[in-house]
């Protein structure tokens, strides 16, 4: 390992723009030389600010140094560049869990699990957090006031309560698929975070597909399943509203419920901005 570190250091010295900092930073991290690793990662981020892997490296080193705040900042930077980065969601889920924000932890871990189904450690962590949520009575989102305006947090749970009659699920999701309001009760558990994770990016894909076909802006997505139907529409700020209802519900009624939920979601987002 020492030879490789020397070779990578030489390469980086002769070509500072090289990607060798990624491997070098990782090797230093593995050897426990965290200060040196942090310096390498810092320089790498400065030279390659649009590189998600550079920010991810810096986040992992920061976490090893016990600096959760820097790690969180770096993983947030990763997600701005690559919203589907499972490692960043996993890391943010871990930080949220450690700081007692179980709902945030579940959101991030569900997204990580959906993005990287081969990583068994994510599924285990998600089960652990879900168990803790179930034991705690679960419902209230644990986001600290500094991350979400208190008014939104308190209204989020009840935003759609009067619309829920006839609907199984009413959800408001942000542009990253994170749940802003509503719930999705399935077999006694709230599956909203998992649904949000799967729907992450769908609005952007619909936009792009419609641009390719010159069909204008997309208005609704309707999904029919054997047990239920779902309808989605844009809700402003890149977000989405999703409503599901039993299969027997006429599609016209489902659309009316969607329209009302979308209108309320948009208004709420505008007022909270």
């Amino acid at each position, binding site marked *: 390992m020492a030879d490789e570190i020397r070779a990578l250091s030489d390469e980086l010295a002769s070509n500072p723009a090289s990607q060798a900092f990624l491997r070098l930073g990782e090797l230093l991290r593995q050897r426990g030389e965290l200060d040196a690793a942090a310096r390498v990662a810092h320089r790498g981020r400065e030279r390659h600010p649009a590189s998600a892997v550079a920010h991810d490296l810096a986040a992992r080193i920061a976490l090893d140094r016990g600096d959760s705040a820097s790690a969180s900042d770096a993983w947030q930077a990763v997600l701005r560049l690559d919203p589907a980065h499972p490692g960043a969601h996993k890391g943010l889920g871990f930080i949220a869990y450690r700081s007692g924000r179980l709902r945030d932890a579940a959101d991030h871990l569900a997204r990580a699990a*959906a993005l990287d189904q081969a990583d068994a450690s994510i599924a285990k962590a998600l089960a652990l957090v879900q168990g803790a949520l179930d034991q705690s009575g679960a419902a209230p989102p644990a986001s600290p006031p500094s991350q979400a305006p208190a008014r939104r947090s308190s209204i989020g749970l009840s935003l759609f309560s009067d619309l829920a009659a006839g609907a*199984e*699920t009413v959800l408001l999701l942000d542009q990253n698929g994170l749940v802003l309001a509503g719930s*999705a009760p*399935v*077999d006694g558990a709230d*599956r909203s975070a*998992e*649904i949000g994770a*799967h*729907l*992450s*990016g*769908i609005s952007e*894909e*619909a936009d*792009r*597909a*419609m641009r*390719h*076909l*010159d*069909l*204008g*802006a*997309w*208005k*609704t*997505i*309707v*999904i*029919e*399943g*054997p*047990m*239920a*139907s*779902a309808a989605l529409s844009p809700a402003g700020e890149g977000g989405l509203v*999703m409503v*599901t209802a039993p299969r027997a519900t006429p599609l016209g009624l489902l659309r009316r419920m969607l329209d009302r939920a979308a209108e309320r979601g948009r208004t709420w987002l505008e007022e909270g901005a």
Partner: protein
Amino acid sequence: MASPFQPLLATVMRLRGTTACLIVDERDGVIVDSTLQFGMRGNVFAALISSLYRKAKQSAASAGMGDASFVQLEAELGRVCAVGRDGLVLIAVADPKANLGLLRVELLKAREALA
């Protein structure tokens, strides 16, 4: 060489208002067979819609809806409908004048022939 899906595509394309029809690999969005309008960039569109279909299907499963049988994306100037089976997705693009009910029935029938 004509693919085994040509008759299926032809049936859907005969419906009024249908402007394109594609069969796409659900996993990677690669076109298996298609009937497109001249100038249409099928590859990008196929990749986007197959990804959208996959997400719709996964979210439906998570929401306890079962296996999604029909997905419709409605836009200002038309709509895109998709059905899938055994890793293939049949996608139809239609203008606003298309008879959606008929298109839906034909796509669900055609779904049975996908394999």
